[in-house]
């Protein structure tokens, strides 16, 4: 028996076989890639997209050799064109498509190539193939090419013959299939130069037709657009719909594999009848209408029957790189490392799994333990806090229509939905993630940390309180205006006049008050005794840390002590201050002591001036006085000054006399000099307002003496029999304090009486 070698696989086949028994390729002649059918009526030239124009331009530039080789392929889309271009075969001839779109006859002189339909029709007619079929629109004959008309003439007219050939009668085909086929032509038939691919597509056509033959019941799509109706019909079928796309080139298959679900969705309704494939059973989407809304449900694919091929060729997978045979895949991955091959296989399997969209109630995703542990709690907390229904969106709809619900509850729901929506960008374009079961029990592992759910309700209740507090803190409290300003002003004048008149009268009288100051306090007495015990001509440091407004009080307090010290021990004085006005006030202080009038600058005393840096300056001065103040107020070197002879540290001073009106500055000097003073005596002369806060340092032994206010000054002046203004002013001070206390007590009593009067009259207190 004569045999013929398959042009594709080389298998020897009997001569009478039309197709290869191994690969199914045509043996006698090269079959066309795909039939072409024309459904678009002739009309004005359609608007050709740019990519198609480019392709046409490229086609025109093809050389004559390419024209001879050009086949009857037609361009179905950019993907196919790209694939064909990738293969570099140059088999496309877009002239036929141009003619189709222009509705014109082929140009004169152009050789009409054998169309695929013609070739296939002849071949199928001759060989009785079950797959060849051409669907044309009979009412638009003018747009058909000659080759198509010839192909139609070659088809048998009787239904029996057509049925024998596997060609459906137009009358038996439902209208909706006709529409689908008509629409599918628009998508085009992918060109395939491979006879094997074409053969494979033809083989799957019969089953696809069977699947399309029974549209699912539609009952709610009357108001939907036509295209959606067709899409829903295609998705309503219980059987897996036919694969819309014929196995194309590798690039196309790759795209198809990656977007299997999308292709399935997008091409539904545009499927072509030329190339139905035994498609992988994809999940079907059922659209129903509920309350005016289209509700879509994704159903899992039905299980594959035993008759279906185990390996789906129509859905290329990544593992095979879009190739059609395992041999190709092995050849592709022969040079790849194992890990890459393994990952590719794994990705292919995962892709297969993901392509079958799971139903809404699906298994939970595999998550880390910590995330797994906190998932259910979050959901439960949110649902509990917001009182969310478990019915998802339908539950929300029901709650929204509940008239008993308050606007606040609805606001909570809306904000919750908005938060969910904001967290998902373009949800429709993303594959639906695996949904977890709502009533799933907590799966927190013992090692997982406890969840920290967001207590939204508590936050919602506390936010207004916080906002109120912030608002109150930022709102200036209105000033309390006296109710009777006309009465307050004379009262103020009266009090001021009384104080001034009494003080002036006492000063002008100039009579010695019979009032004797109280004995000096223990801290003041201890300070006096310690200062008297220092060695003669020993260095003494005076820190003048007070403001000019307190100069009078502090000078009255410090002068008796300083006068006694200077008169007895004649110490060498060093003045320093962290206040800018301190050095001048220190000079003024010394001028008030008669014993200091014989002191010469640079010999008996040195004014180191202003010590910058605040607490930092105090710390630096305590650690190194000469380093912190290298020059004095006259810009002379401090180390060369005679008062600072043999002084290199703070402990070299015999005594430290701190004159201050600030408890903070006193504390800073005490803190920073702790441990650095050595045996130096530290005496603080403080204002009456700062003395109570410095008193604890005396009780703790951190300072050796404390002279506070005018009272201690007058007492020390009396004890030391010294001269000063403290004792002279003591009478006036006492009278002024008595008068001030009387005014305060009178005002307090007045307010109490008014309050009692208000209560008795039943009005507001103080009214």
């Amino acid at each position: 028996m004569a045999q013929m070698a398959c042009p594709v696989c080389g298998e020897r086949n009997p001569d009478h076989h039309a197709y290869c028994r191994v690969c199914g390729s045509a043996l006698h002649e090269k079959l066309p890639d795909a039939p072409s059918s024309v459904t678009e009526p002739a009309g004005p030239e359609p608007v050709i997209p740019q990519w198609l124009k480019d392709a046409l331009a490229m086609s025109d530039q093809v050389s004559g050799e390419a024209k001879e080789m050009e086949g009857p392929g037609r361009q179905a889309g950019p993907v196919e064109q790209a694939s064909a271009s990738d293969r570099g075969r140059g088999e496309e001839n877009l002239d036929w498509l141009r003619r189709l779109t222009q509705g014109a006859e082929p140009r004169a002189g152009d050789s009409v190539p054998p169309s695929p339909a013609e070739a296939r029709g002849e071949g199928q007619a001759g060989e009785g193939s079950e797959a060849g079929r051409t669907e044309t629109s009979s009412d638009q004959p003018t747009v058909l090419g000659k080759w198509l008309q010839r192909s139609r003439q070659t088809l048998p007219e009787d239904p029996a013959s057509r049925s024998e050939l596997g060609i459906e009668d137009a009358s038996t085909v439902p209208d909706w299939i006709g529409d689908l086929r008509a629409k599918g032509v628009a998508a085009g038939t992918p060109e395939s130069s491979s006879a094997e691919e074409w053969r494979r597509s033809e083989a799957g056509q019969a089953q696809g037709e069977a699947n399309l033959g029974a549209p699912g019941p539609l009952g709610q799509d009357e108001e939907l657009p036509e295209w959606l109706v067709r899409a829903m019909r295609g998705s309503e079928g219980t059987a897996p719909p036919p694969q819309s796309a014929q196995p194309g080139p590798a690039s196309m298959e790759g795209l198809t594999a990656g977007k299997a679900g999308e292709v399935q969705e997008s091409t539904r309704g545009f499927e072509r009848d030329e190339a139905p494939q035994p498609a992988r059973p994809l999940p079907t989407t059922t659209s129903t209408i509920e309350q005016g809304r289209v509700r879509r449900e994704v159903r899992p694919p039905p299980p594959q029957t035993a008759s279906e091929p185990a390996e789906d060729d129509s859905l290329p997978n990544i593992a095979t790189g879009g190739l059609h045979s395992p041999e190709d895949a092995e050849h592709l991955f022969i040079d790849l490392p194992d890990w890459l091959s393994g990952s590719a296989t794994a990705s292919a399997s995962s892709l297969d799994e993901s392509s079958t969209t799971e139903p809404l109630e699906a298994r939970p995703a595999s998550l880390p333990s910590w995330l797994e542990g906190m998932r259910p709690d979050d959901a439960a907390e949110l649902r509990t806090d917001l009182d969310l229904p478990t019915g998802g969106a339908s539950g929300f709809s029901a709650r929204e229509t509940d008239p008993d619900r308050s606007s606040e509850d609805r606001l909570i729901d809306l904000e919750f939905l908005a938060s969910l929506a904001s967290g998902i960008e373009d949800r429709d374009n993303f594959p639906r993630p695996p949904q977890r079961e709502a009533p799933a029990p907590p799966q927190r592992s013992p090692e997982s940390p406890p969840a920290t759910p967001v207590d939204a309700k508590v936050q919602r209740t506390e936010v207004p309180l916080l906002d109120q507090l912030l608002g109150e803190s930022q709102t200036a409290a209105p000033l309390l205006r006296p109710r009777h300003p006309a009465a307050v002003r004379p009262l103020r004048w009266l009090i001021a006049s009384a104080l001034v008149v009494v003080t002036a009268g006492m000063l002008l009288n100039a009579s010695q008050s019979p009032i004797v100051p109280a004995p000096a306090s223990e801290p003041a007495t201890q300070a006096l005794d310690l200062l008297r015990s220092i060695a003669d001509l020993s260095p003494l440091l005076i820190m003048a840390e007070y403001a000019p407004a307190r100069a009078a009080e502090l000078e009255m307090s410090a002068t008796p002590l300083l006068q006694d010290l200077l008169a007895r021990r004649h110490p060498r004085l060093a003045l320093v201050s962290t206040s800018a006005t301190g050095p001048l006030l220190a000079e003024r202080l010394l001028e008030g002591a008669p014993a200091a009038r014989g002191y010469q600058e640079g010999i008996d005393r040195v004014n180191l001036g202003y010590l910058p840096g605040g607490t930092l300056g105090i710390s630096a001065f305590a650690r190194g006085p000469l380093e912190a103040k290298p020059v004095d107020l006259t810009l002379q070197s401090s180390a060369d000054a005679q008062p600072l002879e043999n002084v290199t540290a703070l402990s070299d001073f015999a005594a430290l006399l701190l004159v201050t009106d600030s408890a903070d500055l006193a504390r800073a000097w005490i803190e920073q000099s702790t441990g650095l003073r050595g045996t130096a005596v530290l005496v603080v002369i403080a204002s009456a307002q700062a003395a109570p806060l410095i008193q604890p340092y005396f009780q703790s032994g951190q300072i050796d003496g404390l002279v506070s206010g005018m009272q201690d000054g007058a007492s020390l002046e009396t004890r030391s029999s010294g001269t000063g203004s403290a004792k002279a002013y003591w009478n006036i001070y006492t009278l002024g304090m008595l008068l001030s206390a009387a005014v305060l007590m009178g005002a307090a009593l007045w307010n109490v009486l008014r309050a009692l009067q208000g209560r008795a009259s039943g009005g507001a207190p103080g009214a």
Partner: protein
Amino acid sequence: MNISTDLVTGAAAFLITVGIFSYAIGDNALFRTAAHLFVGVSAGYLASVAWWQVLWPDLLLPFLRAGIQERAALAVPLFGAALILMKSSPRLSRLGTPATAFLAGVSAAVVISGAITGTLMPQSMAAIRAFPLTSGSEGEGGRLAALFQVGLLLVGTISTLAYFHFGARTSVDGSSRRPAFIEAMAMVGSIFIATTLGVLFAGVLSAAVVALIDRIGFAISFLTGLPS
């Protein structure tokens, strides 16, 4: 006519003093003039002090007189000062941030360490040492006085600390309240705090009365000394 400097300065001081005292009858131009004069003089004086007592003697003068090594050492604070000056410009203020951060960090470290070693620990130890009743307790009256003093110290310390305890619990009605015993101790602590504030106010009043006496005495002495 020979006008002495003491007369001019005394007259200026007298007018300014009267201007400040005039606030007793209300805000007026004399008071504003005295206040503005004080602010302006203070600012000018501070600027002169900063230049003559800090920048020139402590930074620039050593930089000019010192050798290369000393200049290199002084260049660091000079550069830091230049960076801090950048703070005056909004565009360049970021350049001064490192130097400012350095100053703030060092200041915080110095203050905190000084507070711990100079106040917190010594004051705590002093409060603890006050509790043995053996010292200074001579006779039955002495012991009772010492016991009262120590007890007052204990109650005052604990109640004052309780007053600044802000831990609260949410009650049924949603309000936040401190525990009952803390609330009671805080009430006692408020008495001690009010007493302390009263003492401080008395000190302020005392200082004010002394200042009033000093200023009125100055005015009287100036007016009585004019004929001479």
